[in-house]
């Protein structure tokens, strides 16, 4: 009898755990439908959150010194946005809130052309040469992936819907670090850190970088209203910054980092301001928290 009671108790406990687990999941990820599904991980029920943002970067490039990393795998930025400040240094700029699933900026690896050896055949090379180069230099051992990661909490991100539209000022400020991944480099090879992040001050307007970089221009994108004005989508939005600096690589090569860090550093060349570029081609969707909660 005692044994039967114990079994029943265990079953009840398990069921309770499942129910509680489901409730817990439901509170962190509200399942929306249709166009609103992309805002599933927006902290829309948080009092300070006025809008939800979901941005997918599907193209562009990040140039670090003399290494160019094209963005070939989609990167997602999602979370909540506070009401913009009405005055002061952050006028028209909003604070950002972390996505409820913890993935505010997706850790999407981008292959570094030429891999560890940095050998890139010229564009005019025959396809066979390009394929062989890719096989030898971008394989599991010598191939290098570059991943943009948030260097600080999501609350350090700043967004300005007004600046995107006006093509002036900073549209998206984001502290990031670049994770270089390869069996030789180990798991802790980074440019930038939480204490010394790379700060992207991305604009949809024109940049004013130090030399040798020259000014480049972003784009607000093509505006489109969905769901009778409840969702704003900016297609073909381009955010740019080519005035940022990146610290020297650190943690590359594990215990041999004192040897490997300088090698990576020399491969990249100078990464001081004026030598780096970020061009992010995005589709940005914005809806108010109220609209998201109601759907």
């Amino acid at each position: 009898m005692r044994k039967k009671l114990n079994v029943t108790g265990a079953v009840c406990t398990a069921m309770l755990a499942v129910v509680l687990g489901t409730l817990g999941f439901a509170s962190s990820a509200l399942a929306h439908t249709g166009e609103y599904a992309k805002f599933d991980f927006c902290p829309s029920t948080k009092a300070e959150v006025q809008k939800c943002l979901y941005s997918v970067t599907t193209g562009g490039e990040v140039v670090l010194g003399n290494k160019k990393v094209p963005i070939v795998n989609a990167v997602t930025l999602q979370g909540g946005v506070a009401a913009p400040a009405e005055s002061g240094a952050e006028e028209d700029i909003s604070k950002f809130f972390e996505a409820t699933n913890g993935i505010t900026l997706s850790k999407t690896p981008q292959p570094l052309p030429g891999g560890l050896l940095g050998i890139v055949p010229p564009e005019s090379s025959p396809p066979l040469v390009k394929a062989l180069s890719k096989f030898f230099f971008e394989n599991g051992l010598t191939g290098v992936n570059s991943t943009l990661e948030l260097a600080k909490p999501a609350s350090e991100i700043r967004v300005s819907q007004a600046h995107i539209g006006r093509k002036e000022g900073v549209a998206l400020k984001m502290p990031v670090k670049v994770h270089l991944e390869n069996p030789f480099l180990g798991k802790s090879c980074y440019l930038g850190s939480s204490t010394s992040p790379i700060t992207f001050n991305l604009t949809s307007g024109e940049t004013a970088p130090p030399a040798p970089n020259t000014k480049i221009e972003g784009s607000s994108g093509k505006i489109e209203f969905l769901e009778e004005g409840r969702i704003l989508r900016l297609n073909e939005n381009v955010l740019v910054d080519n005035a940022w600096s990146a610290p020297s690589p650190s943690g590359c090569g594990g215990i041999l980092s004192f040897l490997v860090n300088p090698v990576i550093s020399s491969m990249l060349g100078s990464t001081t301001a004026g030598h780096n570029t970020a061009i992010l081609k995005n589709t940005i969707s914005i809806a108010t928290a109220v609209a998201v909660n109601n759907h």
Partner: protein
Amino acid sequence: MNKKATRTFLLGMLAALCLGAAFTGSASASPVWKFEGKELTGTETIVGAAIDSSLTIPGLTTKCEDFLYKLTISNSAGTGKGELTELPLFNCTTSSPVCTVKSIAAEKLPWPAHLTTVSASPYIVMESVKVGILYAGAECAFGGVLVNVTGSAGGLINNTTETATFNASTLSATKTKLIAFGESIEWLGVFPTEAFEWNREKALSVS
């Protein structure tokens, strides 16, 4: 002077006369403001309210029931000029059930204007246009964002109906465009042209 030199001289004179005539012809083609067929001297003030006007960002049309304007006109160096000094906009609504217009205002007035001719038709071109629109609404994706409409706009002047019409084809004809969020937007507007001062109730034409 020998015969060859005389012929060359006369041909040169003829060419100069032809060029002069051509220049005079294109200069006289510049449209000017006229009242009862007479060229306006000095300045005149035109006021009116749009018969119909709407502004469309793809997916969101904004209309104002009261779209008034005040334009000071004059002729200068053979061309009609103007200055839009007032543009009060009231009772504005949107095509969205969740977006309202919290405020809308013309900024950086006066806006200069000039007359021009495209394919024999007279047009008025408004320059340095800047309108700020602040949308609101708990579910409006544009809520709380000040949208700036900037650029220039050309409208076709109809001397019979005494109106100026702005739409996609008139903006295209005058190579003008209005921009919001980095993109061209659509503006539809029909404005009556009626003098308010010295030439009140006189027929206004542009040619």
